[in-house]
């Protein structure tokens, strides 16, 4: 979408920020390849830590609501993430939770299976390679002779962006497919009518199964669950029918069924479909009926072949799930 030079419309101001994230979401913006040139033709990137040297104080100096769109990726894990989320919220017109971590907590959200104390104890005391006889823990403030050093405070829980600030739109994915980003960005840049606030954009309403090309029958029965490496995939039958847990039934389509097309079961990064709030509960509901046994003992035996149901069903969504975290 090259800009029309006769159009005096000012360029959009775009910001991209990472909270608790791996950096993959920022790379997915680069993965738009030559289309990135169209994006920078239509928008000025005013803040993007992975690519540009702009300091927080520069963002603080911007007028309120002066950024048109912010793509915020990553979960909220510490006080720095929270501070910048709030700062960008006040500076931005359209705040987008970009990627699974900002949307649902993502992989960092798995830390909600433990708490800060558990993590610190493991990392700073118990880990096999740690030598820390004085049991030193990170301090938010340290006095050195040059002055006071500060680092952000790590929270007990991992939060989604929406649990910390108001979010306008959600783009799921780990990372989101670049094609979807271009579609969404084009819609914003061309002034197309936007969906209601709080919508999940850049993804479908229905599940991945709806788009999946693998052969499916109505008679899904499972005698034993296999982990993907335990079985020779026939490359054409529904993974679930082969006994491999595929998150397809509880996952929103929109990625183009990329994992299954690559002969790997869906892991659920696009989050629950529009009709379900909690992907793990949806998955337990779907899988439960497939278990081919009628007595509690036999059912238990089959369920025991699912090694870690909580981690598997909530791989990307623990902080946004109904329970939200492990009760400690």
């Amino acid at each position, binding site marked *: 979408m090259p800009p029309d030079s006769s159009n005096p419309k000012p360029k959009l101001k775009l910001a991209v920020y990472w909270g608790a994230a791996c950096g993959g979401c920022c790379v997915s913006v680069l993965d738009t390849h030559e289309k990135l040139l169209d994006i920078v033709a239509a928008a000025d990137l005013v803040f993007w830590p992975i690519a540009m040297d702009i300091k927080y104080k520069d963002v603080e100096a911007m007028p309120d609501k002066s950024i048109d769109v912010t793509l915020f990726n990553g979960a909220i894990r510490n006080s720095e993430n929270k501070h910048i989320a709030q700062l960008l919220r006040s500076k931005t017109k359209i705040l987008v939770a970009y990627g699974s971590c900002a949307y649902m907590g993502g992989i960092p959200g798995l830390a909600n299976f433990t708490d800060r104390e558990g993590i610190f104890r493991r990392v700073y005391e118990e880990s096999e390679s740690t030598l820390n006889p004085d049991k030193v823990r990170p301090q938010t403030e340290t006095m050195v002779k040059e002055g006071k050093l500060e680092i952000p405070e790590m929270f007990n829980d991992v939060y989604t962006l929406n649990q*910390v600030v108001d979010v306008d739109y959600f783009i799921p994915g780990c990372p989101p497919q670049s094609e979807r980003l271009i579609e969404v960005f084009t819609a914003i840049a061309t002034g197309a009518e936007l969906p209601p606030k709080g919508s999940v954009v850049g993804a479908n309403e229905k599940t991945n199964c709806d788009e999946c090309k693998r052969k499916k029958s109505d008679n899904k029965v499972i005698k034993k669950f296999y982990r993907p490496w335990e079985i020779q995939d026939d490359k054409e039958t529904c993974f679930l029918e082969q006994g491999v847990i595929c998150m397809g039934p509880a996952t929103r389509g929109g990625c183009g069924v990329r994992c299954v097309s690559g002969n790997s079961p869906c892991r659920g990064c696009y989050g629950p479909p529009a009709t379900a709030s909690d992907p793990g509960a949806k998955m337990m509901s779907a899988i*439960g009926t497939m278990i081919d046994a009628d007595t509690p003992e036999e059912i238990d035996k089959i*369920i025991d072949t699912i090694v870690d149901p909580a981690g598997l069903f909530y791989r990307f969504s623990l*902080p946004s799930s*109904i*329970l939200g975290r*492990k009760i400690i």
Partner: protein
Amino acid sequence: MNFRPKIVAFLCNWCAYTGADLAGTSRMRYAPNIRIIRVMCSGRIEPTFILSAFQQGADGVLVCGCHPGDCHYQTGNYKCLRRFKLIEKYIAQMGIEPERLKLEWISASEGKQFAELVNEMTKDILNVGPSKIKSSLEVKHLKS
């Protein structure tokens, strides 16, 4: 502390709810800690129902359906059992005490068994104490 457990019970229309009704019409005395939600079949009970009950402050969740082989819809209670077993494993991983979630089969004639079941479950939950699920979630929300 005067702890009165709140137990949310999902009862199927055909057996369990009729059984609970029998306990009532027979004027049996049992613990008043239960809040009954009638569903058409135990196979209708989604994991979301159970998890939402816990999230909204239930100290326990009771699921009752027809005895195996007696389901009004033939196989609903088996589907319920399979899902229940999965949720049991899930909530154990989430640090929720096993006493808080129970599945029992109650027929339409088992009013007495239903009353005893409620008494027993109330006692178990009194021993375990109030659920921490709701308060653990309340500290989550940072939005000011």
